[in-house]
């Protein structure tokens, strides 16, 4: 396995950081948007430029600062990081277009600040994706928490203030209170924080201590919304929809779950987890979140909150997949990072387009909206199919592999959980689509006139819906990366 020393990982992180002063100082809105797009496209291109080499099996590496032996600020681009970075950077371009439509459509204030912190948040996300060790990951994890606070509290009203407080309490509280001591204990035990192929803790700690550390990491990365530290996610829905879409469907939550995957595979390692039967422990915790999240989603009338609880549930699919410790299960979990991202972002884009176009937030108000916004609701249908896990969308593959993974790992209860939650997913998504299109004239709350949201809102959601479909027919890149990630 070849290691290439190149500055490209660092550049991928720095592109959007450098764009921040440019965005902040632009006088005209169009120039500011241009800088955002330029940064997003350049970032995507840098990430893609490393793709061929990674697919061939090499890794990119770059050390920025050496702090202590085994704990440095270091970047490494391997298959797992590449998968996440591809998803995040491609979706940033699309979200920027959507943000333009949304923010201008609602004439929102503070747009410069919004785009600046968005760029910062993406820098941090790519930083997490390309982290070579736990210290670098922790640094960018915290940077992301701080960069997203102004975005979540964008509206600066009382509700935003309360939600911001909840957001910080859960996310900073767990990362400082749980992840930091766990990281230091790992360093104390093994003298290093590098993500290595067979885990670091092999042979250095007892079952009790390893279990404690595992739980500290699992709950400490609260961005993964594992219950009971999930309450920040619905609260964060008070943010503008592009923020909810990218950050809370793709960047922030996936960072949390990505960190858990990295820690499970790189710090603990499959061998020690299976020898201590810790995989089962994590499976049950994840299963609880999956089921309870879906059940709560059923009871929500506000569309974004229903999507939020759906996200909480879907994130634990990824955790469950990796915790199954079987090859198919882990593949299913990791590729779900990508499939869920495309599906969920479509759903959030639709919710935002509906809000911009009609001002409606509640599902009960959306009866018959298919007459007014057929394209939007068609995209919503595709997104819903992907999240439920039905063909012809990409989400089908991740579900399929997860189911095979439970069989491979002999975890029959998990199979039941997966099937049950798929039913619940269908139960809380499909009625929305059905009521939107198939209702009598008397019930419909909208006229039969087609009037979609602004162009810059509708085009992105169509694009992501099409990509969800595309991923059903051509999932190879993501699967290849996933197989390489597991094989390591």
């Amino acid at each position, binding site marked *: 396995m070849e290691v290439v020393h190149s500055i490209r990982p660092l550049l991928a992180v720095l592109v959007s950081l450098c764009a921040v002063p440019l965005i902040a100082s632009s006088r005209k809105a169009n120039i500011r948007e241009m800088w955002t797009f330029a940064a997003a496209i350049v970032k995507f291109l840098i990430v893609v430029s490393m793709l061929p080499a990674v697919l061939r099996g090499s890794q990119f590496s770059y050390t920025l*600062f*050496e702090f202590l032996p085994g704990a440095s600020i270091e970047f490494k681009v391997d298959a797992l990081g590449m998968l996440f970075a591809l998803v995040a950077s491609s979706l940033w371009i699309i979200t920027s277009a959507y943000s333009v439509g949304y923010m201008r459509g609602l004439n929102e204030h503070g747009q410069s600040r919004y785009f600046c912190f968005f760029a910062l948040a993406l820098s941090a996300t790519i930083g997490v994706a390309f982290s070579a060790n736990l210290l670098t990951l922790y640094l960018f994890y915290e*940077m992301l928490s701080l960069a997203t606070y102004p975005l979540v509290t964008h509206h*600066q*009203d009382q509700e935003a*203030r309360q939600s911001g407080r909840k957001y910080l309490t859960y996310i*900073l509280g767990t990362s*400082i209170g749980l992840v930091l001591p766990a990281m*230091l204990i790992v360093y*104390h035990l093994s003298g290093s924080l590098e993500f290595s192929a067979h885990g670091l803790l092999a042979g250095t700690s007892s079952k009790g201590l390893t279990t404690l550390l595992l739980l500290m990491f699992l709950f400490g990365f609260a961005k993964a919304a594992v219950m009971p530290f999930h309450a920040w996610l619905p609260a964060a829905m008070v943010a503008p929809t592009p923020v909810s879409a990218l950050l809370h469907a793709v960047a922030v939550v996936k960072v949390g779950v990505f960190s858990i995957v990295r820690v499970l595979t790189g710090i603990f390692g499959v061998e020690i987890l299976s020898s201590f039967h810790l995989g089962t422990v994590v499976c049950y915790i994840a299963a609880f979140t999956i089921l309870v999240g879906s059940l709560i989603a059923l009871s929500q009338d506000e569309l974004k909150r229903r999507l939020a609880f759906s996200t909480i549930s879907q994130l634990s699919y990824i955790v469950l997949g990796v915790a199954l410790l079987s090859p198919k299960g882990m593949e299913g979990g990791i590729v779900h990072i990508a499939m869920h991202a495309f599906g969920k972002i479509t759903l959030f884009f639709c919710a935002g387009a509906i809000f911009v176009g009609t001002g409606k937030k509640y599902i009960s108000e959306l009866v018959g909206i298919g007459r007014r916004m057929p394209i939007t609701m068609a995209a919503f249908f595709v997104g819903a199919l992907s999240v439920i896990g039905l063909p012809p969308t990409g989400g089908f593959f991740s579900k399929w592999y997860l189911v095979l993974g439970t069989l491979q790992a002999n975890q029959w209860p998990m199979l039941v959980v997966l099937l049950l939650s798929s039913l619940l997913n269908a139960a809380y998504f499909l009625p929305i689509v059905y009521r939107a299109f198939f209702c009598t004239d008397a019930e419909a709350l909208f006229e039969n006139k087609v009037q979609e949201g602004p162009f810059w809102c509708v085009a992105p959601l169509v694009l992501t819906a099409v990509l969800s479909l595309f991923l059903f027919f051509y999932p190879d890149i993501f699967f290849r990366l996933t197989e390489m990630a597991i094989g390591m």
Partner: protein
Amino acid sequence: MSQHYPVLLVTVPLLSAFIISGLSWVKKSLCYPLALLALGTSVFCAIGLLLRVLDAGAVEYHLGGWVPPWGIAYRVDLLNGLVLVVVSSVAFVNLFATHKTVQKDFPEKMGIFYTLYVLFATGLMGITVTGDVFNLYVLLEIASLTAYALIALGKPDRAPLASLNYVFIGTIGACFYLLGIGYLYIMTGSLNMADIASLLPPIYHSKAVLVAFIFCMVGVLIKMGFFPLHVWLPNAYSCAPEPSSSLIAPLMTKVMVYVMIRLIFSVFLPDFSFHVLHIDHALVWLACLAIIMGSLLALAQKNIKRTLTYIIVSEIGYMVGGVWLGNRLGMSGAILHILNDAIMTLCLFLAVGNIAYRLKGLELQDLKGLFRKMPVTMAGFVAGGLSVIGIPPTCGFFSKWYLISGAIQAGQYGFMAALLFSSLVNVVLFFRIIEIAYFEPMESLHGAASGHGIRQEAPLSMLVPLLFVAISLVVVGIYSGTIVNHLIIPVLPKGIG
């Protein structure tokens, strides 16, 4: 010339103080430039000294040519070389940053202020550079007396009373220290640190040496503001005028932590402090108490300056606990934290100084909407806050790393819990302030499209130092590994595990 750096460090500001005092009668406008020149020379000498010590090892300077133990010796090794650079740079940057405030708040006392300022810096640098225990007492009192006077320059209804309280408690502390070195003198007949260290080992188990240790330590702990001996600190630092508090708060208590470390390393060697006496566990628990109480008391405050002073009490707990953990990691963390805490406190107090320049009050409710009015100052404040919380890559994270690692290695999980608890409380403290400064009533937002109209930032001479200090928070953080490996680990004595 360079062999005279140790003494130039101290005598140049000392003599300049007298000249400034004279100038204040004749030509007031020359006071400030002369003070800048004096402290600039000290910075230069301090950096030169540190480089020399890095190159050639510890530097010794015999005052007046008298050989110790008959004469007073100045001894600079890596530990006090580092602290000297910190003290002189902080004093210099602060001098530059607070000039406008001095001109605005008490222009008629400018000459007096700069005299006291330079004398205070002299006292602190003298404490750091000296190798003689009695000389340390003298310079300690020089620093303390000028501090009392600097604090009393604040508002006439509160500052003199706060300062008088500080006088009483500070004098008790200094007298305890004097008593302690008296006992040392009785037992060893010497006042030179290295000499005492060589004479003490045969008499480690005598009661008089134990009494000396206790008196010296308690005196230093009083001066340091270690809970529960901290009662003078909140009033003194918050009632002082901003130019004084941003000088005294970052420096005085940290230099006293240095004195404690110097006493443990070079006078009562680690053998005595850790292996003969068995008080290290008790002191770590007291440090945990200090950290927790400092954080809790900070939560109860309604004034931003008082919040910061209680954070200082908590930070002193970090350093004292780190020293008494008794292992290399903990000690490195404590020494690194001297550097980091000085920078963080300076950053925060400079930001508060900027805010006080433009606003009338410093109660938390007065800070509404500050992110719009003073964005650069608030950016600096947020940087300082992040460092206190301990977010990488600011320097506060890295000293916390060493302190927590030291706690894990020593098995002191209580200390680790206290450190994490105080980080979480700091999150609440700083985000409470950030919230008030960030969230405004909606009406004032929709009118202002760009918001540049209501900006009322502090003048440039106050912003530039603040930004410089905020950036150095990150730079020092990134280079923590280098600093620890080259400047701190070599100075740790062999008795520490």
